[in-house]
C-alpha cells in the first residue's frame, strides 16, 4: 500500500472502529472518544452521560449530569398545544411514516418562536451580554437591526422570553429553581436573581427557551450545540403524542374551521355540476 491517504476517508475525533478480521465493513469494536462502547461503556454509562460525551468529548461531572437530566425532562414534551407536537400529531393522525412525524416536529420546533432557533439566539445573547445587566438592558431595549435578510425570519420577540406571557409561567419558574439548585454559581443563578429586571427590560416574561439557554450556556454549549441538543431533547413528546393520535384516528383530532375571505363561490352552475 502506498502512503497516500484515501481521499474518501472521514476524519473524526468522535468515533473509531476496529474491523472484524473477515469483513472490512463490520466493526468488531467501536470506540467513542476513546471509550470502548460495547466492551466497556455499555451497562456503565447512563444515556445522558453518553449524550454529553458525544457532544463535548469528555465525561460529564455529577452536577452536569443532574442538570442535563432535568433539562431533558423539562424539554421532552412541550405538550400537544405546542406547534412542533401539533405538527407531529398532524403527521401521526394521517398515518404518515414515523420518520416524517419526527421530521415534522423538527421542522416546526426549529423556529424562533419557542423552538431551537430561539435557544440558539438566546445562547448568542448570553455570549454577547454575559451577566452584565446593563448590557442586557441595552440589547433588549435596542436590539441590533438586521444587516441583511436570511432564510430565518427575523425574530419577533426577544429570544428567551414569552411573547404572549403575562407573567413567568409556573413550569418555567419550577424548572429554573431546580436547575439553580444544581448550578448555583453561573448564568442560571444570575438569571434567577435578575429575572424581574430582565423581564422588565424585555417587556415579556422569561420563557422555557430562556431557561434552557442559560442552562446550556452554564454547561458550555455553543449556540450551535445548544440548538442541536434542544431539537433532540424535544422529540420524545412529539413521538408519543403522534403515536397516540394515530391510534385514536383523525375523527377525534381537530380539523378546525376556515373563514375563506375571498371565496369566489361555485364556478359551475348546478347544470354543470
Amino acid at each position: 500500500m502506498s502512503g497516500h491517504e484515501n481521499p474518501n476517508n472521514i476524519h473524526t475525533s468522535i468515533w473509531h472502529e476496529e474491523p472484524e478480521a473477515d469483513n472490512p465493513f463490520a466493526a468488531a469494536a467501536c470506540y467513542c472518544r476513546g471509550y470502548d462502547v460495547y466492551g466497556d461503556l455499555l451497562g456503565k454509562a447512563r444515556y445522558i452521560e453518553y449524550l454529553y460525551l458525544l457532544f463535548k468529548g469528555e465525561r460529564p461531572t455529577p452536577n452536569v449530569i443532574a442538570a442535563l437530566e432535568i433539562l431533558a425532562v423539562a424539554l421532552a414534551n412541550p405538550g400537544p398545544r405546542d406547534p412542533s407536537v401539533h405538527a407531529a400529531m398532524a403527521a401521526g393522525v394521517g398515518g404518515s411514516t414515523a420518520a416524517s412525524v419526527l421530521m415534522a416536529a423538527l421542522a416546526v420546533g426549529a423556529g424562533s418562536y419557542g423552538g431551537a432557533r430561539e435557544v440558539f439566539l438566546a445562547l448568542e445573547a448570553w455570549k454577547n451580554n454575559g451577566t452584565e445587566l446593563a448590557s442586557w438592558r441595552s440589547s433588549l431595549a435596542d436590539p441590533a437591526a438586521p444587516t441583511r435578510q436570511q432564510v430565518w425570519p427575523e425574530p419577533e420577540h426577544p429570544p428567551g422570553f414569552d411573547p404572549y406571557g403575562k407573567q413567568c409561567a409556573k413550569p418555567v419558574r419550577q424548572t429554573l429553581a431546580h436547575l439553580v439548585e444544581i448550578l448555583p454559581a453561573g448564568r442560571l443563578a444570575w438569571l434567577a436573581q435578575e429575572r424581574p429586571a430582565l423581564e422588565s427590560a424585555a417587556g415579556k416574561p422569561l420563557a422555557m427557551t430562556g431557561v434552557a439557554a442559560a442552562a446550556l450556556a452554564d454547561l458550555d454549549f455553543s449556540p450551535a450545540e445548544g440548538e442541536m441538543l434542544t431539537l433532540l431533547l424535544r422529540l420524545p413528546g412529539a413521538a408519543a403524542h403522534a403515536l397516540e393520535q394515530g391510534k385514536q384516528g383523525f375523527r377525534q383530532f381537530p380539523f378546525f374551521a376556515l373563514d375563506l375571505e375571498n371565496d369566489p363561490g361555485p364556478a359551475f352552475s348546478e347544470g354543470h355540476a
Partner: protein
Amino acid sequence: MNNTLLDYEGPLRTRMGACFPGERAVFRGHDLHADLKDMDWIALYAFGITGRRFSPQQTTLLHALWTYTSYPDPRLWNNRVAALAGSARSTGALGVAAAIAVSEAAIYGWQPEFSAADFLVRAHQRMLAGETLQAILEQELQLHKRILGYGRPVASLQVDERIPAILARMEQEQIAQGPYLQLAFAIERGLAQMGRRLPINYGGVVVAIPLDMGFSPRECYLFLLPSFMAGMPPCYQEASQRPEGATFPLRCSQLRYEGPARRLWQQG
C-alpha cells in the same frame, strides 16, 4: 384580558384557499378546476407565492431556471441524502424531503441564494440613491466578509456552466436582461477591479432573474425551493436498484480517528 392569541381563536381567516371536498377547491381566490385549470404547474407555484401571473415567456424562463440546476449527481451533498435513503431502503418521500431541506445549506443552495437576492435589492436601492457600486461593495465586504453569489465550492472553473445556458434561453425567449441581472454582472466586474477573482455563480443569476420579474428576495427563496429536486429521485432510484447499503460503502478503516487515546470508563 388582552392577549393577541384570543383574536385568532375561532375559524382561521385566510385568503390563500380552501378545499370543499366533493365540490371544488379555491386557490388564492380562484376556482382551481375552472379559472386556473389550464395554468402551467410552475406558473401556479409562482402564482401561489406571489399572487401574480407571469407571461408564457417568463414562465418558460422560470422553468429553465430549475431545469438547468437539476443535477442527478449523488455526490452532491443534498442529492447524497436522497441516494443514501435509497441505499438504506428508506422511502422516496423521506429521502427527497430530507434532501430538499438539506439544500438550505450555508455554502450552496438557499442560504447564499437568499443573501444574494437580498444584497442585489439593497445595492440596487443604494445605487438609485446615488451611491457608487464600488463603495457599496467595499462596505458590504467589511460588514459581511463575503458577497454571496460569487465564487463556487468544489469548482475552480471561471464560468458556471448554468449561466451561459440560461442567458441563451433568455435570448431565445426574447427576454431582455433586467436591472438586477445587469447589476449581478456589474458586481462580478466590480469585485475583479478590487482584486477579488470571484466569478459570478448560478446563485447570483438564479435570483436576479426572478427579481427582475418583480419577486421579492423571500419570494425568490420560496420559488427556488424545488429547484434541485429533479436531480434527487434519480439518485434515490438508482441507489434503490443497487444492493442494499451498496451506495458509497465505507470500510471501518476509512474512519480516520483523531480523538483521545483509548481509556477506561471507571464507574462514577
